[in-house]
């Protein structure tokens, strides 16, 4: 068992190292010089631009030899200092991201978990009969084929503008100050609902289809036939089949994380929902490479962490892997 975790950890660390290295390359590869873009916005006289460039270059440590920058980057990383955002100068990148992350978690976590659960239940239900399979499941195919942002736009247009029920931009109404008062939370929820709904629906389709195929194979498995031969009721056979079919969906969840993050970015942009996605868009538009670098770091850490947790959950839930590792008897 220990060896298995050791190996898994090794792979994740290696992945993390690789990802961070790629991440470090962002500012170095971006076209244009970050300092110039910042200064050009400050519209100062020529010579002061001269002086400022020197100051900022040193501030961002761009003058050091490359490998030294790389090492200092790692050192800074462990102190949680991801440099200073150009676009929102002087606020440090970490702080900028920190107040975006709660929105992301508040949006992604419920969307993923709820869609995962209901999608699997729906997929299992749809696999019950040929009729259900032909009517309900195509809905699943269409949903999972829908680009996240397009569904977002449609919902914004239909429920937001035409019906006018929900606000379609921002994390909360600008008139309110962030506080724990009920009106603020209510506004928070109303702004949260449309992005959540669009993410939920697209992911829901994906899980339903995955479960439909899984459960058909489990219903055809030997243990199902044995239970049926011994007269076990359909409900018991289906319960066992569902339990076994949902296990691979757990690893499916881990593998889908990368795709889901991409989808979330697009949806946040549609609703200008103040999560990391929207932050990334602003960073790109303003060529704020340090902010971009920070955002990706958070995404990569988030995805790796989630994958590791899901791996652990899978081992706890599926007895086959546990005994497989210790080598079953004989």
């Amino acid at each position, binding site marked *: 068992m220990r*060896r*298995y975790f050791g*190996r898994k950890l090794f792979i994740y660390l290696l992945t993390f190292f690789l990802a961070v290295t790629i991440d470090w390359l962002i500012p170095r590869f971006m076209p244009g010089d970050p300092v110039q873009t910042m200064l050009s916005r400050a519209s100062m006289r020529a010579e002061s631009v001269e002086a400022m460039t020197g100051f900022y270059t040193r501030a961002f440590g761009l003058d050091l030899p490359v490998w030294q920058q790389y090492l200092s980057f790692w050192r800074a990383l462990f102190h949680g200092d991801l440099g200073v955002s150009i676009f929102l100068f002087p606020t440090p990148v970490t702080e900028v991201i920190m107040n975006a992350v709660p929105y992301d978690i508040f949006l992604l976590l419920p969307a993923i978990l709820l869609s995962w659960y209901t999608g699997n239940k729906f997929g299992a239900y749809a696999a019950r009969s040929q009729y259900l399979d032909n009517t309900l499941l195509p809905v699943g195919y269409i949903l999972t084929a829908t680009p996240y942002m397009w569904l977002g736009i449609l919902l914004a247009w239909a429920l937001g503008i035409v019906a006018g029920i929900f606000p379609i931009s921002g994390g909360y109404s600008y008139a309110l100050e962030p506080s724990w008062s009920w009106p603020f939370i209510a506004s928070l929820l109303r702004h949260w609902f449309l992005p959540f709904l669009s993410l939920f629906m697209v992911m829901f389709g994906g899980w339903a289809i995955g479960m439909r195929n899984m459960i058909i194979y489990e219903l055809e498995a030997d243990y199902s036939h044995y239970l049926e031969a011994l007269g076990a009721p359909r409900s018991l056979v289906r319960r066992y089949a569902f339990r076994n079919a949902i296990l691979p969906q757990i690893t499916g969840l881990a593998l889908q994380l990368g795709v889901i993050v991409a989808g979330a970015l697009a949806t946040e942009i549609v609703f200008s929902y103040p999560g990391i996605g929207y932050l990334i868009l602003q960073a790109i538009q303003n060529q704020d490479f340090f902010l971009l670098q920070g955002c990706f770091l958070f995404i990569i850490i988030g995805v790796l962490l989630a994958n590791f947790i899901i791996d652990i959950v899978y081992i706890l839930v599926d007895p086959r892997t546990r005994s497989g590792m210790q*080598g079953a008897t004989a």
Partner: protein
Amino acid sequence: MFKLEEISKVYRVGTFGGKELRAVSHVSFEIGKGEVISLIGESGSGKSTIGKMMLQLTPITSGKITFKGTPVSGLKGAALKEYYRHVQGVFQDPFSSYNPIFKADRVFENVREQFFPTVDDARWDEKLRESLRGVGLNPDQVLNKFPHQLSGGQLQRLLIARALLLDVEFLVADEIISMLDASTRIDVLNLLADLKARGLSILFITHDLSLGYYISERAVILFKGYVVEMGSTDRIFSTPLHPYTRMLMASVPRLDKKWAEVEKEVRPEESQVEELPAGYTFFDPEVAREIGGSGHRPQPVLVEVEQDHLVACFEPGDIPPTA
């Protein structure tokens, strides 16, 4: 013709090859020209692994296999191809030996492409038909058919015909009839016996004692990768010595005697240790593994109890008195 000396096969299992699985340990025997040896053992005894090592389908961990004097494991490229001109194999599951989406004749085309590229169509067709008739098949009935349109018996005989196309001298028959029905089994078995008469030497791998007895003069009994008993089939079957062989003899379902009757005759529980020279005891892989834990893993030694009848034993020093 074939000489196996102390060959072993160890598989790396578990992550990063953590654990060791000893499939075959220190097996040695010889097969002369025109001789059929049956390699008898249950599943997991390593009999197929030995077959695969002789066909160079899996590398040998330790020990040497020589075919007519030349070591087999070193062969590569053209030399290996030349080796396959003389040594061929037929496998257990006829339906897995054929690529399902091609016609069954493809096995012949592969051989032609590799070994007889220059032979013209007419001569090849004649050679093919003659080889098919040699295994008792009517060429028109079996050529140009998909595997699922032929019976298991026909498919196996096609494989034997494929081997005969090459001037093969040695055939590894790995459980070739265990998937066939009783009625077609015997025809394939008789075919092997006819080929033996024509000078082909065969390693007949099986788990079925009665098949081994029917076709081979010498047998090798395998248990958990070790040879436990070896020698002339008559002697082994009439006076089995090693406890495992005796257990096999007593438990195999026979068509002429009930189990109770056989047990009275063979009396598997009574040890035959007095038959062994002084100080020797029968080799037992389980005991060997326990002792093996403390570094020194005792090797079985083959003691010739009577003419052409050997049994695997622990040497006097190997076993601490408590075992």
